[in-house]
């Protein structure tokens, strides 16, 4: 779950967003001389934490981790189903016990070989709660997690402290030989192999366990990916270079990558225009107005879609929003096409499905509540007994949400005659504090970007009872049962079918309303002849040719 902290950029907002990415593939390469020892400068933001994969949850550091590490599986650039990368094979008969064999002869940047125990040790470290790894809960599927990871009995604010775990190793992990290990899950989970491409599951070299994690992550992070770490000057520059012994896929074609750490997207954009910066993933919001970026960049600009969706969530714990008919009425009163055209100049697409359609297993167009139908909306509102008082739509005012939230409130006001308005909460931190404490008194902005490409990630965290991001406290036993059945299905196909049924139930209840699918506008310099973006819109560093 990575969160983007860029206050000014459009996706920052999504602050939600778990970015999963991987090195990715690229077509074959005729390496030109320019590429072979060329260097590029790409846009970045200062990573919040030292570069340890299981402790990085934001995009600034996440992007670099994705370049520096290659996991067991990887996600293709086209968003398709995951495929094996470092894994030779991942075998299971019951979706509960997985035998994972890794390819022999691949190396970490320090020259040591990547072995099965590098995975087992890294996962054990992250799952041991006193280590305080932010991605620790990603290991919850594995048997023995409840012994290594304890939670605070009265919440983090309470006086009691979490007890020390009784075990420091996951009982479900077993090294078989140098290249093979066995993972036993607590319950069958069809999607488990898909998750393995997320950065939390990366291997760590032996040297990691001999030093402090912050020392490792700050001074000499060692991965096994196509890109190797050189140096890190805080807030200014991270220097990376090609890992010449990389043999899992194509090596990087250029030699050096400088990640210039910007604090202001407009400064980066000026550099991009002057060819002083070779790649900027997301052009600033200011450049989107009136399609300015198209005029500025010409064929250096490119527009793509990313697997993230903007929602408006309902605080279902508030009695006024408990009636599904009311929630459906609000959803039907929102003209998504108009918001997409007038406010985002077509850079965002109106949402018409619950899971982002780019996600494997998602069914496009399955959100019947996403239509614009003010007549039915009025009728449903009447059936729900109307709405008394003021309906306030909340958003965090530290990034660019005011315009579209105002538009939503205005549409609800016009189409339903509800006294609606939008109100900004000063910062994302205050906003999330109220949401986490279940103290919201009106519908609020939310955004979701998948952690790993599977529809499971769009249902379990958001719509099952006690889901990790089910902040509105939506609960429907039927959805829970179907989702549980889907998660434990013996195959991914069966799992996707069952999730589709769960989503149909969600569609009846409208616990939140999908508003738009994110798009991304990127730009590159004249120097770059070829580049691909990966499944979440980050630059695929191995594809760059000069």
């Amino acid at each position, binding site marked *: *779950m*990575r*969160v983007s902290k860029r206050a000014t950029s459009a996706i920052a907002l999504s*602050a*939600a*967003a*778990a970015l999963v990415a991987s090195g990715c593939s690229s077509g074959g390469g005729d390496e030109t001389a320019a590429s072979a020892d060329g260097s590029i400068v790409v846009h970045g933001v200062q*990573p*919040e*934490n*030292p570069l340890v994969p299981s402790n990085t*949850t*934001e995009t600034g550091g996440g992007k670099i981790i994705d370049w520096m590490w290659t996991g067991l599986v990887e996600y293709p650039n086209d968003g398709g189903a995951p495929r094996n990368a470092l894994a030779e094979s991942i075998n299971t008969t019951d979706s509960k016990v997985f035998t994972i064999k890794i390819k022999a002869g691949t190396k970490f940047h320090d020259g040591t070989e990547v072995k099965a125990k590098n995975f087992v040790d890294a996962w054990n470290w992250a799952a041991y*709660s*006193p280590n*305080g*790894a*932010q991605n*620790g*809960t990603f290991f919850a599927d594995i048997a023995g997690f409840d012994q290594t990871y*304890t*939670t*605070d009995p009265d*919440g*983090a604010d309470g006086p009691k*402290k*979490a007890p020390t775990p009784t075990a420091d190793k996951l009982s479900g992990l077993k090294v078989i030989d140098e290249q093979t290990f066995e993972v036993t899950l607590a319950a069958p989970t069809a999607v488990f192999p898909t998750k393995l491409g997320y950065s939390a599951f990366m291997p760590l070299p032996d040297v990691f366990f001999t030093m402090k994690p*912050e020392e490792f992550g700050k001074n000499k992070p060692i991965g096994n990916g196509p890109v190797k770490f050189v140096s890190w*000057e*805080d*807030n*200014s*520059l991270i220097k990376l270079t090609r890992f010449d012994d990389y043999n899992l896929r194509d090596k990087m074609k250029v030699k050096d990558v400088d990640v*210039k*750490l*910007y*604090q*202001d997207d*407009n*400064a*980066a954009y*000026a*550099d991009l*225009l*002057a060819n*002083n910066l070779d790649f900027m993933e997301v052009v600033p919001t200011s450049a989107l107005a009136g399609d300015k970026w198209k005029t500025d960049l010409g064929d250096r600009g490119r527009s793509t879609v990313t697997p993230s969706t903007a929602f408006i969530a309902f605080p279902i714990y508030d009695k006024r929003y408990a009636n599904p008919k009311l929630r459906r009425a609000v959803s039907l009163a929102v003209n998504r096409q108009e918001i997409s055209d007038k406010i985002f100049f077509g850079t965002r697409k109106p949402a018409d499905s619950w899971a982002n359609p780019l996600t494997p297993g998602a069914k496009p167009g399955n959100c019947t509540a996403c239509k614009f139908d003010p007549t039915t909306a009025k009728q449903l509102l009447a059936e729900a007994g109307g709405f008394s008082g003021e309906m306030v739509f909340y958003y965090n005012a*530290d990034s660019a949400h005011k315009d579209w939230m105002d538009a939503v409130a205005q549409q609800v006001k016009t189409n339903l005659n509800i006294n609606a308005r939008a109100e900004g909460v*000063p*910062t*994302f*931190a*205050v*906003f*999330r*504090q109220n949401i*986490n404490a279940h103290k919201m008194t009106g519908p609020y902005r939310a955004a*979701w970007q998948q952690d790993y490409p599977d529809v499971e990630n769009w249902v379990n965290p958001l719509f099952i009872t006690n889901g*990790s*991001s089910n*902040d509105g406290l939506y609960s429907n036993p039927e959805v829970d049962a179907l989702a549980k059945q889907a998660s434990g299905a013996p195959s991914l196909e069966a799992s996707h079918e069952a999730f589709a049924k769960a989503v149909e139930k969600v569609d009846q209840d409208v616990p939140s309303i999908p508003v738009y699918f994110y798009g991304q506008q990127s730009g590159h310099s004249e120097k770059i002849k070829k580049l691909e973006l990966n499944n979440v819109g980050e630059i695929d560093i191995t594809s760059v040719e000069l």
Partner: protein
Amino acid sequence: MGRYLLRRLLQLVPVFIGTTFLIYWLVWAVPGDPFAGKCGERRCPDQYIAFMTEKYHLDQNVFVQYANYMKNLLQGDFGQTFSQREISDIILTSYPNTLKLALVALAIEAIIGLGAGVLSGLRRNGFLDNLVLVSTLFLIALPVFVVGFVLQWLLGVQWGIIKPTVSSEMRWSELIVPGFVLGSASVAYIARVARTSIAENRRADYVRTAIAKGLPMRRVVGVHLLRNSLIPVVTLLGTDLGALMGGAIVTEGIFGINGIGRQVFRAIITKESATVVGIVVVLVLVYLVMNLLVDLLYAALDPRIRYE
């Protein structure tokens, strides 16, 4: 002189404690839980929050936190940020950059501001004087970020004379435009103050005497007139260094300079009291020392001023 210096230095202690506590308390009072937004649209794991709370004593009240902080600070330990980076590292990497930028701005202020002020003060109501008045009015009226964005766009993007942002090596030549932007408003003030001061002293008795006894004009202006007119200018320049360093946040942002401005801003947003105070502590020291230096300079400029 020695006693005066000692007294001034002792005064620094209460000012230092007062400002640091006020700032610590203000950052502490900023609403929002530092870990509420850190993990995106889901709660951070309880263990993570507990780990951080204990590490940074966040469950204590503000006085205990501040006392802890001061105890460490006096031992030279600035503490760590929430991402476990040494704050002293941040100060060491970002302060020199801001200082460099501020010095360039100060030099530009002194050269352009003083030059324009002297020229227009000597030829009052002439063409040059009017030009300086109009152009300084223009500079004062323009907010820093407008000057910054316009110059960056014109010189960097349109004409390609400079690179739009400063590289990580922070070469002096790259800092001229950002320095001008940062100092632009102050250039105007310096020019105006210098002009008034020169124009007034121009009519003073000692200048008339100097001219009457046949001194060459260069000597009259350079030694007698300028030296006596410098006091208000020096005051302005001296206190400006602190203001420039604290106020560089906008300029640093536009030109992508890794200075203290962005660090303070980030730390306030994430409620890292220790980082904010750490950086401001040094800033406060710069202010106090500069003020002291300015006062001492008075004596050098004007023999009538003596410190006991």
